[in-house]
């Protein structure tokens, strides 16, 4: 039994963190909001050059061939900077699902994704809208009975403005006559995979978002003075942050656990739901309490907090909301003959 990451995994995480923190600043994100496409091709190229767009692409197709457990740490860092680019959906959802499809699809698209030549978008009928569909060279669209790989000529996309300006959401119409890449049972399994993988990605990003909001708030409350003292010294203020720290710290292991299940091809549904619930809860609590301890400043557009707060909000609703995941956990508990007790630790 060993619940720790390897030194290599942590070192790689650190170097990606350094890159992201330096490059994906709140100022750059605000710039991306103002751009026409809402995306930054230069940034995507930088990510590709670091090998990140191909991190889960098998080496045979020009990628780094790493697994979900390697990437889950990086996904947290993507959350920490509120990366607008769809790296998490690419590495954690699109690439593994296209790899599972295999054959021509994998051979054609995976090398291009790894090289950063093709942006891939992921949509799932459970979400309704597909993120980044109009910016992508390939859209993976999953329905319970059909999985599509669509090139831009095979669908139309209608922009829906999001509360989170970093999110680019599109309603999709698939052109008449386009055939799915998978159907029937295979599509059902892949749909499940898209949902679980997307949910894990959202959960991991939520962890990073929560950490960022804590960091911002600890810094602010350690500087802001009232009654002649820094407000962070008051118990009423610090207990808000302690509550977030508890939720966050304890949401990490379930996220790791879910990534472990996916990486090993084990049944992951309950583990993923568990991770999604607690990580998003941590991020939403971080958002609420961070705004509170910032006072009126927390409510302004100028303070960066809302960049992370809105993303946390979005993560909680995407790839299955709280009700959906709680229902999955409840069904598991109340199923007949399920072993819950001692000895079923993992």
């Amino acid at each position: 039994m060993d619940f720790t990451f390897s030194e290599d995994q942590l070192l790689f995480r650190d170097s990606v963190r350094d890159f992201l923190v330096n490059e994906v600043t709140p100022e750059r994100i605000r710039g991306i909001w103002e751009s026409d496409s809402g995306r930054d091709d230069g940034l995507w190229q930088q990510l590709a050059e670091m090998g990140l767009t191909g991190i889960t692409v098998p080496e045979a197709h020009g990628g780094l061939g790493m697994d979900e457990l390697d990437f889950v740490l990086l996904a947290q860092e993507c959350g920490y900077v509120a990366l607008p680019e769809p790296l998490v959906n690419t590495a954690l959802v699109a690439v593994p699902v296209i790899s599972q499809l295999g054959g021509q699809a994998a051979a054609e698209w995976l090398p291009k994704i790894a090289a950063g030549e093709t942006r891939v978008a992921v949509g799932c009928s459970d979400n309704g809208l597909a993120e980044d569909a109009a910016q992508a060279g390939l859209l993976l669209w999953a329905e319970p009975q059909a999985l599509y790989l669509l090139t831009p000529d095979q669908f139309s996309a209608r922009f829906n403005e999001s509360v989170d300006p970093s999110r680019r959401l599109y309603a999709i119409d698939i052109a008449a006559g386009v055939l799915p890449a998978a159907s029937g049972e295979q599509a059902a399994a892949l749909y499940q995979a898209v949902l679980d993988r997307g949910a894990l990605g959202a959960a991991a990003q939520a962890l990073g978002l929560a950490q960022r909001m804590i960091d911002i708030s600890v810094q602010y409350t350690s500087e802001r003075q009232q009654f002649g003292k820094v407000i962070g010294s008051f118990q009423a203020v610090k207990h808000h942050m302690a509550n977030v720290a508890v939720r966050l710290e304890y949401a990490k292991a379930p996220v790791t656990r879910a990534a472990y299940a996916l990486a090993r091809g084990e049944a992951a549904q309950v583990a993923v739901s568990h991770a999604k619930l607690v990580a998003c809860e941590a991020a939403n609590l971080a958002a609420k309490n961070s705004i509170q301890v910032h006072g009126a400043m927390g409510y302004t557009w100028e303070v960066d907090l809302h960049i992370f707060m809105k993303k946390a909000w979005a993560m909680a609703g995407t790839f299955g909301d709280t009700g959906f995941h709680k229902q999955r956990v409840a069904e598991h508990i109340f199923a007949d003959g399920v072993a819950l007790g001692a000895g079923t630790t993992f």
Partner: protein
Amino acid sequence: MKLSFSPQDEQFREEVAQWLADNLCGEFECVRHRGGPGDEHHRVAERKAWERKLAEGGWTCIGWPKEYGGRGASIEQQVIFNEEYARAGGPGRIGHIGETLAGPTIIAFGSDEQKQKYLPGILRGEVFWCQGYSEPSAGSDLANVKTRAEFDEAAGKWRINGQKVWTSLAHESEYCFVIARTDPQSVGHKGLGFFLVTMDQPGVTVRPIEQLTGTSEFNEVFFDDAECDAADIVGAPGDGWKVAMGLLGFERGVSTLGQQMLFQNEFDAIVKLAKDNGAAKNPALRQRIADAHVGLKILRYNSMRMLSGGGDGSLQKEAMIYKLYWATWHRNLGKLAMDVLGQESEILDEAPYELNRLQSMYLFTRSDTIYGGTNQIQRNIIAERALGMPREPRG
């Protein structure tokens, strides 16, 4: 990362399960699933006999090093033992304070003489311990200890005067480890000593405190010129705080695993009840039961992570967080149990004041967020030490 047990560990699991199946029966049938939090008064004599039975099988103190009579069991094996113990319905341990607190402290900080004198009794399941920390004016502010220890040169003994309070199982214990002030001029955590004190002596008076459960698990303990041999101070006079804090480290370690398996049994009982009485069909209760399950899994995963050691540098933080998390979770579980019981939750099992297991659990869990450091104190610690927020000015 490897989240499974090895074949050797699984074999160990079978060995534990088999031993428990063979021994936790007959005269011990009456203590199965009993004696947990809120139920400590149940069949104490039988549970003490059970401690000796465990010892005969070599199942006390399994995590202690072999040189001190333990099995030197790995973390994995200790996890497995606790899981199987709970699965079999092993009774609440009376020996746990000795096994998980006094023993490891003596092993880490004690003299050879103390080791020889005290460890065997704990190993044999014959000698029981209690913890003399809290005082009427030293609760959250634990370092404000007023109990004094003065060395009587003529008698060659320490004389202890003062009062401890909330002392669990003092009335069932042979020994108490006591922190007392050795330097009368000192304040706070300086000038304290850590003493191993015999309970059966004229200078020690134990007075039970009746709790809102109607039972008495904890006590007031009065020291009036209580004697303690010169050889029975752990470390030097003035080292008491260091020793006591080392002990708190043990408290947050492996000893938490057994507690979690008790939680698991309580949770399972609630799920079964909900299925039986139809509460499982109530969407609001279903959601709360799902929440409780998620929280319990979190406790398990994080203990494993904490005990895996190493890691990403945040493990220290995790240890600080543990108490706040489990206490709050367990308090909520108590309320959930009552809500699943519904109207029945109001009715006593028997007069005069016999609570059923879940009622007793519910009432007991009101104390979880208080003892061992209140939630408010825990939040201060997390904010100041884990997050690095500014310290509150303290008088």
